[in-house]
């Protein structure tokens, strides 16, 4: 008995260590963002903000004048993270709504309808899961460019709007698990497939669908590579791309660390808030075992 107890103590110690290692960088982001970049060198190890100031936030949200920004170790280039926030919201929301809806329709056809070629088509869809995105990304860039959609919302959104193999695969798994008797009951009541899908399958799958929506939203929000290729222009620039550009502007020799951390926190915050609101669902979803 005693040995088990010690095991538990050691286990908890490891768990706490992991949690501290997980949370500390977030704290450090916060601490640095409220510091003054010029003072960071003097108090590099201080646990609290060095020379507490909101200057970094004023800089990245485009609220401070160039002179002010430079005086605090910022860049002369203007940045406006409110704008980038708006762009991220537009892109992630559209992609999520479209992708989840159209993928769920396809998943239904793959899981619950019987038609010749179903398995073959599904296999082809799933095979695409194995294709490294870069293989299709370069030609997709050429396509978007040829369509004249570079630096437009549409150009950023289109490739992920109608489906991803993962979304179809994910939902098919859950639709497969729904008991056939439910559908048969609907069929006996005279409901067609469209009605069954919207009235029975979708409501029954609220859990997995919102799970997928959350995952798609997070993926889209955090995507860097694709928007970097097609959406560098300021008016459609999303947060991740903006962060990369902000990081490469190195004012006066050394990065504006406080500004950079304020910007990263600003970019991460919506996801953290989303998580705080939907946390249980997100966590449950990852361990979702399907319909019993």
């Amino acid at each position, binding site marked *: 008995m005693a040995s088990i107890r010690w095991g538990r103590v050691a286990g908890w110690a490891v768990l706490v260590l992991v949690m501290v290692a997980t949370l500390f960088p977030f704290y450090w982001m916060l601490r640095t963002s409220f510091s003054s970049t010029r003072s960071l060198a003097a108090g590099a190890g201080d646990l609290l903000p060095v020379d507490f100031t909101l200057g970094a936030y004023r800089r990245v949200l485009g609220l401070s004048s160039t002179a002010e920004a430079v005086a605090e170790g910022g860049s002369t280039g203007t940045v406006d993270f409110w704008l980038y926030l708006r762009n991220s919201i537009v892109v992630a929301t559209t992609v999520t709504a479209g992708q989840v809806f159209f993928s769920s329709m396809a998943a239904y056809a793959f899981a619950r309808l019987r038609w010749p070629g179903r398995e073959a088509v599904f296999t082809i869809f799933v095979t695409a899961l194995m294709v490294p995105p870069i293989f299709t990304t*370069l030609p997709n860039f050429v396509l978007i460019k040829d369509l004249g959609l570079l630096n437009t919302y549409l150009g950023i959104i289109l490739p992920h709007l109608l489906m991803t193999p993962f979304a179809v695969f994910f939902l098919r798994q859950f639709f497969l698990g729904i008991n056939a008797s439910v559908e048969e009951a609907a069929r006996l009541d005279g409901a067609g497939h469209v009605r069954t899908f919207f009235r029975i399958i979708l409501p029954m799958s609220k859990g997995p669908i919102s799970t997928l929506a959350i995952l798609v939203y997070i993926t889209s929000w955090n995507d860097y590579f694709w928007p970097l290729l097609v959406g560098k222009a300021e008016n459609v620039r999303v947060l991740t791309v903006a962060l990369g550009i902000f990081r490469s502007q190195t004012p006066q020799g050394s990065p504006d660390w406080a500004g950079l951390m304020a910007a*990263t926190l600003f970019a991460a915050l919506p996801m953290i808030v989303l*998580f705080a609101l939907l946390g249980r669902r997100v966590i449950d979803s990852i361990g979702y075992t399907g319909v019993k």
Partner: protein
Amino acid sequence: MTSDTVRAAPRPTAGTVPDKAPPRRRRLGDLPIAIVFVLPAAIGFAVFYVWPAIRGAYLSLTKYNVLTPPRFIGLENYRQLFGDHLFWNALKVTAEYVVLNIGTQTVISMVLAVLLHRLTRSMVVRGIVLLPYLVANVVVALVWFWMLDFQLGVVNQVIEWLGFDRVAFFGADLGIATIAMINTWRHMGYTALLIFAGLLMIPPSVYEAAAIDGASEWRTFWRVTLPLLRPVMALVMVLSVIGSFQVFDTVAVTTGGGPINATRVIYFYIYDMAFNRFNFGYAAALSSVLFVLLAGIAYLQLRLSRAGESDLKGA
């Protein structure tokens, strides 16, 4: 997680409903309505997956700078690729990254998952470990870039305070290991929760049986948990190895492939080739090789791990 869901799902069988449909209908089944349901996704798939895949394969056989039309040059890009030491270097660097990243991530996640499973059902704990996964790679990269900064980074402050020399985390020697650790930090909680989900699927009766047999926790883990977890682990491994090969964001915002070529991973090399040197044809050839390589690795992994089979039935 997935294979077992399929297995557990009661499939509609011919026996459940007497099928009175005429022969023609039975052959076509629900085809007309199925087309309606699949169409939007199929269009997306055709335009943004199949067509670019074909086009990518073709472009790899051309010289193409995006501005002028592609010129067919046969296998010249591939021939050039085999003599390109930067390509081989990129492969080597990527392989180092994958081994370090997957190695640490798998072990840490497995330990974490088992600890979560045995110790607590707390949502707060699970939420905390998942947190890094929810923020962008770019965000994670920048935070660690700051924390590991040679001059001002807090980690180097601590190292100095402990009496050691400062460490150049993003230098030529450690750069790729540092990037691997950063991404391990981001993904360990997520991977742990995937494994945790697999652990939850193991019926408690199995553990009860092990306990009745007097098996220790350690023995139970190796003899019961791990074998039953194999299908889940296989899937997790295949997906994380493929994902790991595609490291880009972290490199792009921290080292930019440097110093010299120490962290120029394959994805970054392809990006560089296409968008800085405007050699799209060659970049397409590089992506084709990466594709073949990943397909081979995934196939091998699935074969070796017998991912499709579950041990649960026999248990």
